[in-house]
């Protein structure tokens, strides 16, 4: 009988040592609170809910404490666990190109084609990436980590995950969470900078309405775009190839079913998987380090530099443009790729100064150019370090 009770009590003690209560640390509590804040922001404030809900819930999943030494194969970093298999899509850079396929299939590049000079604003905003690179180096990060962190300045989650998975896999979680968090905070970060760098007269500039773009132009865009950009930076091929392929599916008009899948079910599935696994990768035991906090700070700095670069370059371009072709510098911020949030910010700030000046359609041009620009910048970083 005694032997039976010993067995039961030993089993019960072992069970207790496996529970989350026995393994919880302060780090887990902090991460669970951050996860709840993410979920709150997504539901109550409507900040990027499609991203913050999967990431927030993934953070909850990833921060349920368990006995690491028990070999339960439940944690995302434990080889053989389901989450670990799903995380392969992040670490091997599979999900980002699939997301780019969907983005290509749902993006209308007409505004960019109708006013091609706005493409250059997408290039200027990439200053955020390279600016953040130099600051990261100054703060003591090693060059490959600095490059991976810097890409947050492109405001493009998939590109950030793609590059960091290649250059600094140990930082993927922190970089992805930082990139998506700041993308959600674009309406908070950008307006003060835009107002600071422009005057009343500039904010009220009315831009020429975009011309109608022919179907032939729209079909030729992905083909010419792919050839020109990937001939310069072939290392950006996984991202740009899928982006332009998705766009051709949309614009060709003969592959509606494929385009619908790419911009619907496929991108939704990949968004769920990428959000959940990136969230789960913030396991307190590996995530909560001084480096992660540094990455968060650098993310904010890179967004500020990118926004400044875009707005100032719009003002610079105005020096060479006639009165009727002037650019409203409030669309310069949209050069950071966060599509379409940063373009919405241009519209929102523009309307504050002129109730009938709608900037959204103009801002979409640098916005989609920013997607191409950040992918090119990622390609450059890759070829520098992997070449």
């Amino acid at each position, binding site marked *: 009988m005694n032997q039976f009770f010993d067995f039961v009590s030993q089993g019960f003690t072992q069970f207790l040592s496996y529970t989350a209560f026995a393994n919880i640390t302060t780090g887990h509590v902090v991460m669970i609170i951050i996860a709840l804040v993410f979920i709150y922001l997504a539901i109550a404030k409507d900040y990027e809910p499609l991203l913050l809900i999967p990431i927030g819930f993934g953070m909850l999943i990833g921060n349920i404490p368990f006995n690491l030494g028990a070999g339960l194969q439940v944690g995302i970093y434990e080889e053989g666990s389901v989450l670990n298999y799903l995380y392969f899509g992040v670490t091997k850079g599979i999900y980002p190109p699939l997301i780019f396929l969907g983005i290509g299939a749902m993006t209308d590049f007409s505004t*960019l*084609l109708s006013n*091609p*000079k706005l*493409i*250059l604003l*997408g*290039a200027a905003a*990439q*200053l955020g*990436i*390279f*600016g953040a*690179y*130099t600051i990261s*180096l*100054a703060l003591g990060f*090693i*060059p*490959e980590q*600095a*490059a991976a962190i810097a890409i947050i300045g492109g405001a493009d989650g998939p590109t950030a995950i793609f590059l960091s998975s*290649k*250059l600094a896999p140990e930082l993927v979680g922190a970089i992805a969470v930082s990139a998506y968090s700041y993308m959600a905070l674009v309406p908070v970060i950008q307006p003060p900078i835009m107002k600071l760098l422009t005057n009343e007269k500039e904010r009220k500039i009315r831009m*020429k*309405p*975009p*011309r*109608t*773009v*022919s179907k*032939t*132009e729209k079909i*030729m*865009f992905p083909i*010419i*775009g792919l050839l*020109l*950009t990937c001939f*310069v*930076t072939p290392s950006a091929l996984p991202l740009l190839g899928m982006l332009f392929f998705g766009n051709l599916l949309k614009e060709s008009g003969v592959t509606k079913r494929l385009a619908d899948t790419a911009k619907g079910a496929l991108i939704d599935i990949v968004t769920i998987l990428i959000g959940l696994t990136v969230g789960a990768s913030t396991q307190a035991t590996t995530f909560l380090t001084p480096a992660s906090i540094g990455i968060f700070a650098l993310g904010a700095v890179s967004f500020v530099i990118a926004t400044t670069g875009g707005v100032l370059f719009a003002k610079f371009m105005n020096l060479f443009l006639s009165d009727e072709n002037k650019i409203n510098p409030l669309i310069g911020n949209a050069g950071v790729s966060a599509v379409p949030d940063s373009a919405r910010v241009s519209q929102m700030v523009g309307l504050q100064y002129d109730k*009938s000046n*709608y900037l959204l359609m103009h801002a979409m041009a640098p916005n989609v*150019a920013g997607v*191409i*620009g950040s992918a*090119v*910048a990622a390609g*450059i*970083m890759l070829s*520098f*370090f*992997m*070449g």
Partner: protein
Amino acid sequence: MYSQITDSVAVFDTAAAMETIHENAHLFQEIDPIGIGITSIGMIVVFSSLLLLFVAFKNLVKVLNYIKRIKSGKKGESISIEHENDIHSGEVNAAIAMALYLYSQEQHDQESLVLTINKVARTYSPWSSKIYGLRQHPRA
């Protein structure tokens, strides 16, 4: 980084790739410790890539118009796909939107009063035949 296993297939070696990355990073740290070199080259390449796109799309309309003009010249027609002047102002768009809105509202009111009977014609199939679907009473 790539280990050759056959004449035509190369397998990506992740460990070797990471080794190359670390070596290059070490080199950059020595030669370009503040990153000004990568920043300059990076910005120049990004600008060049997007400048190429700008030049291409700036001239795309002209090229398409030229091709169209040659084609129409052969047929003796004068067609232009130049859309530069095909611009709708905000007022025109607002007027069109309002007209469409009023029209759809009107349609809705009429629709609620109109009873529509659609004639449905289906091809015959024994699987859906009423004759086989109902019990056949034996004739006495």
